[in-house]
């Protein structure tokens, strides 16, 4: 055995480890949230559409829901809107919106004009709730299980692929 082959052997071993690493990485998502596998942050915020009511995390327990962070100032949120309407039409999991640092009147006008995909919309004028959720930039979408655990996070506009490959299987099959 040629001792000069040892480095090549060690490198081959390393490559195997890295290949396995890559195979596993798509599941981890692009930006892994520290919230994954942990309880969703508790919140109780005024509702955009029914100002007398509050939207609270306690009420949402017991069902799957998608927590979608958006704002009228966010260009990509407009691009995402059609996909959200499709999600609503599918009727599998309700969408809860977090209207982030926005003007209430503009947000109401936006939903009136483009259609409202949300079951309810919480208003986060100060941005405090978004900080609790570790939001990096809108839009972001979190999938929360009936037990109130964040099981998936998507950064950027929600798309068909994420919906069919990541969100639907989790809600329907209980894949976590």
């Amino acid at each position, binding site marked *: 055995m*040629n001792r*000069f082959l040892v480095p*090549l052997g060690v490198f081959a071993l390393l490559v195997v480890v890295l*290949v396995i690493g*890559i195979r*596993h*990485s798509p599941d981890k998502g*692009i930006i892994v949230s520290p919230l994954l596998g942990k309880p969703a942050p508790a919140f109780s915020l005024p509702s955009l559409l029914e100002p007398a009511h509050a939207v609270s995390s306690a009420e949402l327990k017991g069902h799957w829901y998608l927590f979608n962070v958006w704002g009228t100032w966010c*260009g990509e949120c407009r691009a995402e809107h059609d996909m959200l309407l499709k999600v609503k039409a599918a009727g599998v999991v309700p969408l809860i919106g977090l209207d982030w640092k926005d003007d209430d009147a503009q947000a109401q006008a936006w939903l009136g004009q483009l259609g409202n995909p949300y079951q309810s919309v919480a208003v986060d004028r100060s941005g405090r709730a978004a900080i609790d959720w570790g939001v990096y*930039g809108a839009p972001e979408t979190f999938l929360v299980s009936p037990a109130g655990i964040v099981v998936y996070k998507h950064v950027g506009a929600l798309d068909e692929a994420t919906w069919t490959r990541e969100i639907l299987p989790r809600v329907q099959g209980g894949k976590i």
Partner: protein
Amino acid sequence: MLPELGHFALILALLLAALQAFFGIAGPAFARERWTHAVTPALAGQAVMVVTAVVCLVNAFVSNDFSVLYVADNSNSALPLFYRVTALWGAHEGSLLLWILLLALWSVAVALRSSGLPPNFAARVLGVLGLVSFGFLLFTLATSNPFARLDPPAPDGRDLNPILQDPGLAVHPPILYTGYVGFAVAFAFACAAMLEGRLDQGWARWTRQWTTWAWAFLTCGIALGSFWAYYELGWGGFWFWDPVENASFMPWLVGTALVHSLAVTDKRGLFKSWTLLLAILAFSMSMLGTFLVRSGVLVSVHSFAADPSRGMFILVFLVIMIGGALALYAWRAPLLKSQAGFELGARESFLLFNNVLLVIAAATVLAGTLAPLISDALKLGTVSVGPPYFNPTFLLSMLPLAALLAVGIHAGWKRGRLEDSQRAILFSLLAAVVLACGLVFGIYRQGHVLTPIGATIGIWILISSLVDPLDRWRRGLSLSRAVLGMTIAHMGLGVAVIALTTVESFTVERDVALSPGQVAQVGGYELRFEGVKPIEGPNFDGVGGTFVVTHGGAPVAVMVPQKRQFWVQHQVTSETAITLSRGNNLLLALGDNLGAGRWSVRVQIRPLVSLVWLAALIMAIGGCIAASDRRYRSAPAAAVARGSRALAREA
């Protein structure tokens, strides 16, 4: 139009890099002199095209062209001009372009200074560099085109990531990358020598200066990154063993080993195959670092958005380049024989230990960095490997290394007669113990077991490094730049050991909540909170809290840490306030508004922490001085002479 021109220039650069690689490697192999001569023009063309592409992208940033996706994602019309230029390397695509630019510039530098090298050897070096350029250009064009258009154009950009809007970080990537990429030159020299099948001492002398330059840049780049993490992120501390930090530290450790082993190969013609291996490993570590950071296999606090398809591409590239070089090594290295021997106690044996310890350190860092990956793959659950693993394992190899340095610096080449310098070693050790105990028990009056040991070793290195230069100076002998540079770099290490020991042992860190007018007592300092005031910048607003700091009633400073809220990304950054006082580094970071004017604030008092970065700077300066030694410049002619003598003997 200009972005398309830039894209086109990149494609041309790819083709020219392919030609450069082909001519450089095939020319000498098939003894086609015309091919060999075509390498330099191909390289020149490649470099011009790369520069053109960079200029096009910078122009898109400066002119706020938000129809370019990369610009729209990483800039904003309110962003100051300086950051619009540095935003070029603010994310993945542009960083790659910067990497390619630096590689082209290093290649041009090699070509300009290769006149003294045997033409075939120079062609092979440039050919290997062309292969590396080709790989990175293909990667950029295939997976990360910085010139992709956005249709319709964004009305305004999403802004540069706020934590990157800082002068320290703006200059950190170019310097760090210059170091990373510089190891490509040593790699190319190693591959060229193996293709040639001959490795004489001229090779080592030639490789030395390039490696030392690269090492100096890398040292400086790492220090800048650490400094930025300290004052911008406000986490406290200067090193977090984060995967991205480790990615830059592993090539540094291997590069340091390479610098030392090259010295032995140059001076004594020993360790030839080992030096070759290190030259391959240093650059492999740079590329592996790129892979880890870009592929998303490891999650890091400051990694760019990653993409698995990119990861696969880099991995294939790694297998071709590193696997190819190591296979070449397995084939050629057995042919190399060292003629001379040395005794235990000679300088060679100390440098051998140095190499072994540095490589062990790099291996432990690599193991710790990859451990989460491995445990994930084996379904052992998620593990997180942090300072509790890295600190002790790293110390285990570094403390003996530092102690060996203090002894080994007195050793001469070839013969192990340490008896001659016994007195110098003992006296310097004694002086170091006294000074270290004075520092630890006199000034700080407390400490961990390791504190006096660390301080002793640090001071010992400082004293020992000075013995030989002072001796020469007393005897009226001149000091070559190589020796001067080495002495300075070693003293830098001594300063680093002292600083790291004291910082780790005597740091005070506290979170306090203050109302306006209240005073907090921390580590002998009094902090009076005067309340917060609104602030406004070009693309952010926020608040600044005013703190009047005194020590025993004597005024120290007025510090104003800020919290900035960036308009576009809605991200809050903490702008820490730092002041130096009595050798301590005082850091204030504004925390949360607790209501009714009360704010939480984090106070850190770190003794001598500035010395950590200063030490790195000293090492880098030492490296630059050593690399500019005249000996390396006159080397090529000597190498040719030796080469032709060798040929004459064969004939």
